[in-house]
């Protein structure tokens, strides 16, 4: 393997590559040969005596004679072999675009440096061994193991437990199960009404039917999309601000992408389409031609454009004054690199960053592959011709609408012009008055001199005049803000000014505007991508063409179709999205089903959901993972009557949460589990479910829900944050601030204190797996923060109102979704009595309510509230 081979030849090529305008061997042809022909006609061997590493060698030909005659396709055997796919011999053929390059190159006389040969280091050859790694092979549906367990998931899990003499545990109690599945699917606790309905169904039908009814209800609930949308937004690295700089500019339209994601989950948008829209929505719906030809943008086009907000999540360092900075594009590359990182880690579970600077040390990802992938997004993000994020926006309009708007605006501007002139004259009149009034107050003898000093050209003033101007400036011709204040104070001016200003405003308001779409789209012109040595912008190497990871390229073709010269979009992203969402792709389906599993079991079948590479954790149940992946992307008709729709996320979740593996108890039972614990201490084989802690958002949302203050309003601009004097960042204390956490503004520099404490990630790029931390500030915040105190008060008021007879048990039912034990009832009674006495000393009238608030507060702070069994 040549993964660590020398890179010294890269330098040799880069200069020519940068400036070559035309097709040349080293720039255009060599990369193709290198990727697809070197295995047999390169350094290691020269089949048929042919070496295609440099032009001179190709011209020399092979054992059977010449293979290339410049300018003559019909005399070039090389072309014939490639054209007919006779070569390369393996599965990987040249794409149409690549063939086109070879053909044109030969036609124009096969230009190029005779001696140029391929750089080796950054471009290792992918071997068959590399491709054999499990995660790089298309999953093949394994046969469901023969089992007495009817659910296919259970058959697989059972088959892994069986040889160890282990079994699944018993099913969890109905209410434990209800709380688990409700939090899992909606991120909220079950309400008392839902508890009652479920228990009633359990009594009248089978518990299984009652449970399945609950699952269907939860999957259909709009709360489902809020929960699972939030998971996806972590992967996308969603934020409402550009981040990076102290100013942390707010992204005005990012929320529309957030809403798109929530809707996509709620509407059960097929996952392949979901990815295609996010990566290439604009190309998928042929936005530019719709823009040109349609009267207005159809809803599905708007939706697809909003979806590309996924590629606009990466933070941005651009600021206008960066033009002064040396190598400014180096900083812009950060946005492009982050985007690549987000795409690769969220969809393919791969870490590409290593390959940015050098060939990946563990995974077969050559340095060039990184830049081939980068080239896919280069047509939109171009560090060399950077457009700051704040200036990249599409409006929700067509060319026709824009033309019409322009005309209407021009008309309004025409009526505005005299008004604006009038305003300027008015201001001028009054400024002159201030000047003259001021002058009049000066002693007669200096007056003329001052007037002359101000009248003089500022560059030609004498020293004396300068002094006079300096002295009187503030009072006679003050700076902008001061003069504005003075004018403001002048009643006569004010009346006239307001009248004109109102007219201007009302006209301005009539100007047509269109909603903004924070879309990703290609910039005009052809984008070039170079390999960057050591990842440094200042050290460009060989030019690369768009491509995908070659270790994955065998399974299905990545092909950018040729586009007309004036096409506004390169088609690269659509080609990539199609490649990515092919059912033959080894990773896409596996990574997604593993994420679902991760959220339903606390740990994925692959425990490192962001790393399916060689340094990741091998799957605990490889066959189950592949079965789920196949069931996801190429489902069979075996379970349902009709062949189910592929890439259906809800269907997969229904499958998972109805398995006995999911429904089993999570609590360790020494009498039953001792053996299992000894054999498989980490429960990798799933002999029980896993107890899990609520994430920050679920925790906050549950507090809102239980206290009866949750505002269920969906969608729309984010709820702005309030920053207190002592640095705490909170949601406003009103109905808007009581909305679910997914709707709160995500400002990178000002994370909501509560959520951040409970491990909401700081959005640098994206978050592929949340951490779980236990830090003293969490306890202090639960016990003492205004937020928790107010919610505990509201919670107490609610239970006292809803169940005056047994408020404490009602509170426990709300918080824990179960009835209190007798011991708890006694404990509460005793606590309330004591606490009431204590409060009575200071707040007699409020004592009962305060005691109840204390009880409610402790329920919200308890472990049982924070954990799901």
């Amino acid at each position, binding site marked *: 393997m040549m993964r660590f081979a020398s890179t010294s030849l890269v330098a040799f090529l880069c200069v020519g590559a940068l400036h070559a305008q035309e097709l040349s061997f080293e720039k255009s042809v060599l990369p193709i040969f290198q990727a697809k022909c070197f295995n047999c006609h390169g350094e290691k061997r020269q089949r048929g005596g042919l070496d295609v590493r440099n032009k001179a060698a190709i011209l020399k030909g092979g054992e059977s004679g010449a293979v290339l005659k410049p300018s003559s396709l019909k005399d070039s055997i090389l072309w014939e072999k490639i054209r007919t796919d006779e070569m390369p011999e393996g599965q990987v053929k040249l794409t149409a675009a690549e063939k086109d390059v070879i053909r044109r190159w030969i036609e124009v006389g096969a230009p190029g440096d005779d001696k140029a040969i391929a750089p080796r280091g950054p471009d290792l050859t992918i071997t068959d061994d590399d491709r054999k790694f499990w995660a790089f092979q298309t999953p093949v549906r394994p046969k469901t193991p023969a089992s007495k367990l009817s659910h296919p998931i259970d058959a697989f899990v059972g088959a892994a437990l069986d040889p160890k003499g282990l079994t699944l545990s018993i099913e969890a109690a109905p209410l434990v199960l209800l709380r688990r599945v409700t939090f899992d699917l909606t991120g909220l606790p079950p309400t008392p009404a839902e508890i009652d309905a479920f228990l009633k169904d359990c009594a009248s039908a089978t518990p299984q039917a009652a449970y399945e009814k609950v699952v269907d209800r939860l999957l259909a609930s709009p709360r489902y999309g809020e929960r699972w949308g939030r998971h996806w937004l972590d992967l996308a690295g969603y934020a409402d601000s550009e981040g990076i700089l102290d100013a942390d500019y707010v992204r005005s339209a990012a929320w529309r992408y957030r809403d798109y994601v929530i809707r996509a989950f709620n509407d059960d948008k097929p996952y392949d389409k979901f990815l295609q829209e996010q990566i290439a929505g604009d190309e998928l719906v042929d936005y530019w031609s719709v823009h040109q030809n349609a009267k207005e943008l159809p809803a599905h086009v708007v939706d697809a454009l909003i979806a590309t907000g996924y590629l606009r999540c990466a933070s941005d360092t651009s600021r206008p004054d960066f033009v002064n900075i040396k190598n400014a594009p180096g900083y812009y590359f950060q946005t492009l690199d982050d985007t690549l990182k987000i795409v690769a880690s969220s969809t393919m579970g791969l870490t590409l960053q290593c390959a940015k600077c050098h060939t990946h040390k563990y995974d077969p990802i050559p340095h060039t592959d990184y830049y081939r992938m980068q080239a896919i997004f280069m047509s939109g993000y171009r560090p060399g011709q950077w457009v700051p994020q704040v200036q990249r926006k599409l409006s929700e309009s067509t060319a026709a609408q824009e033309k019409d708007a322009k005309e209407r605006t021009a008309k309004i501007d025409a009526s505005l012009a005299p008004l604006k002139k009038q305003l300027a004259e008015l201001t001028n009149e009054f400024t002159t008055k201030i000047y003259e009034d001021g002058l009049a107050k000066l002693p007669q003898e200096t007056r003329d001199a001052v007037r002359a000093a101000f009248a003089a050209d500022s560059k030609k003033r004498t020293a004396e005049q300068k002094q006079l101007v300096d002295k009187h400036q503030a009072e006679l011709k003050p700076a902008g803000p001061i003069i504005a204040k003075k004018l403001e104070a002048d009643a006569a001016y004010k009346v006239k000014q307001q009248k004109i200003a109102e007219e201007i405003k009302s006209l301005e308001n009539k100007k047509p505007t269109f909603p903004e779409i924070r879309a990703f789209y290609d910039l005009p012109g052809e984008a070039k991508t170079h390999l960057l040595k050591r990842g440094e912008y200042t050290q460009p190497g060989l030019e690369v063409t768009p491509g995908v990871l070659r270790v994955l390229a065998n399974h299905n073709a990545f092909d950018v179709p040729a586009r007309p010269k004036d096409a506004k979009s390169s088609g690269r992203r659509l080609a990539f999205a199609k490649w990515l969402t092919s059912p033959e792709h080894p990773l896409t389906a596996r990574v997604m089903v593993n994420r679902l599993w991760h959220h339903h079991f606390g740990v994925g079948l692959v425990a490192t959901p962001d790393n399916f590479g060689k340094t990741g954790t091998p799957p605990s149940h490889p066959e189950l993972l592949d079965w789920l992946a196949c069931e996801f992307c190429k489902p069979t008709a075996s379970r349902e009557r009709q062949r189910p729709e592929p890439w259906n996320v809800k269907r997969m979740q229904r499958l998972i949460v109805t398995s006995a593996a999911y429904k089993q108890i999570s609590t360790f039972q020494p009498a039953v589990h001792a053996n299992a614990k000894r054999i498989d201490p980490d429960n990798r084989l799933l002999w029980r479910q896993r*107890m899990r802690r609520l994430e920050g958002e679920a925790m906050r949302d549950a507090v809102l829900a239980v206290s009866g203050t949750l505002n269920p309003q969906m969608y729309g601009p984010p709820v702005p944050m309030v920053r207190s004097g002592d640095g705490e960042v909170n949601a406003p204390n009103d109905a808007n601030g009581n909305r679910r956490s997914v709707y709160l503004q995500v400002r990178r520099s000002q994370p909501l204190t509560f959520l951040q404490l409970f491990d909401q990630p700081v959005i640098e790029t994206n978050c592929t797996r949340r951490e779980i931390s236990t830090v003293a500030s969490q306890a*202090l915040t639960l016990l003492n923060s205004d937020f928790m105190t107010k919610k505990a008060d509201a919670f107490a008021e609610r239970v006292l109102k809803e169940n005056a007879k047994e408020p404490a048990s009602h509170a426990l039912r709300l918080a824990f979704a179960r009835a209190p034990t007798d011991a708890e009832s006694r404990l509460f009674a005793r606590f309330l009595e004591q606490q009431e006495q204590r409060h009575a000393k*200071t707040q007699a009238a409020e004592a009962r309510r305060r005691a109840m608030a204390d009880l409610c507060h402790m329920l919200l702070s308890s472990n049982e509230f924070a954990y799901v069994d």
Partner: protein
Amino acid sequence: MGYEMLNKHLTRREVLSTLGGGFGGLALASMLDADAPRTHDLRPKQPHFAPKARAVIQLFMHGGPSHLDLLDPKPMLDRYDGQAPPAEVADDERLTGNLLKSAFRFRKHGQSGLEFSEAFTHIPRHADKIAVIRSMFTEHRNHEQALWMMHTGMVVAGRPSIGAWAAYGLGTENQNLPAYVVLPDPRGLPVDGIRNWSSGWMPPLYQGMQFRSEGMPVLNLQPRTPRPQGVDANRMRLLEELNHQHRSSRPDELELDARIANFEMAARMQLSAGDALDINQETPATHRLYGLDNPTTRAYGTRCLMARRLVERGVRFVQLFMSGQPWDTHGNNTAGTKSCCDQTDLPVAGLLTDLAQRGLLDSTLIFWGGEFGRTPGAQNRDGRDHHPYGFSVWLAGGGIVGGQHHGATDDFGYHARVERTSVADLHATMLHQLGLDYSRLAYQRHGRDERLTDVAQPRLLRRLIG
């Protein structure tokens, strides 16, 4: 189970707190199991080798203090004042004008003869304890990027700060206080706010906790409205009982113990944080030493004194910040620099004196410096612009050999020329004093080992660490 039983659990809690490590004493979910969701704690960790320093106090000078006016004397600037800089050092971004001499004279101090400008009157008394690095350079001329570089090792946002790395690598010796404490200016946060002490993609357990020098020392340490006597204790007993019952039917869930212990730690912190920051326990002489008797030095002096009290109590990393970016002297270099020195010079000298007297200086590494230096060329009449190519910082205590300077800039103070010192070199050296090897202090993320110094291959400043 009745309410009477509560007292029994109190006993358990008392036992834990007398151990001083309720948190530490309990084993958490297996740390070695890479597959399980990672859990984190602040129990003391073994360093990689015997440390020289137990703690760090970082005196962060926001805005970019002028090396040319404080720590790096340049006679050539005096000689060529007002003239165009020579081509070899000229600012190729052409942001500033002609050379500007310093308004401050430099003098040699101590046995070593280490030079300081007269802008400092007190710190130079410690010349023989201080090592000035005159050959620092960084990678960006913009505040934010340079701050991220200085705090987190790279010019990108969102990485853990060096204090977070120290907390992650070493934990803390006092479970009643956080490992990493930040003392911001009560007048306001520094530029870039809380990101200066962020734990980035590490869990918030490792981020700097703000202790305030006025009012309630820690956010939510107490409720806004105090609760009547006995109310709190009763609430905590109820919580304990709820958690105990929950825990007892869930054997094998050690994570629950950690969360229970966490409430206990919070309770202890309510006492210890107040105590740690209570400077009224100090003598009037100590107050004077830190300049608490003078309105100009009082605010910074208070934070310096608090820093000593925190380090004394086992806090691992303490950072002091000023509001905004006071050292950013674009238009008023002489007056601005002097004003910053007036506020900080005496308190910093007092801190060094106090630590030395108490025998704490040997085990406490002091860092003084900002995110970059300032240009030798003038901006406006008396201003200097940001300057990343050469600047100075200083270290003292924690095993640092004082009375020397390391490296040099060119004759005009433009470029670090001799023994060029990258931020990674500085970070690696600071970690080294804490007993940490920069290359082994790694955090797994996205299948990659992340380090404070990322992929840099820093050199330790050998002469400084003896």
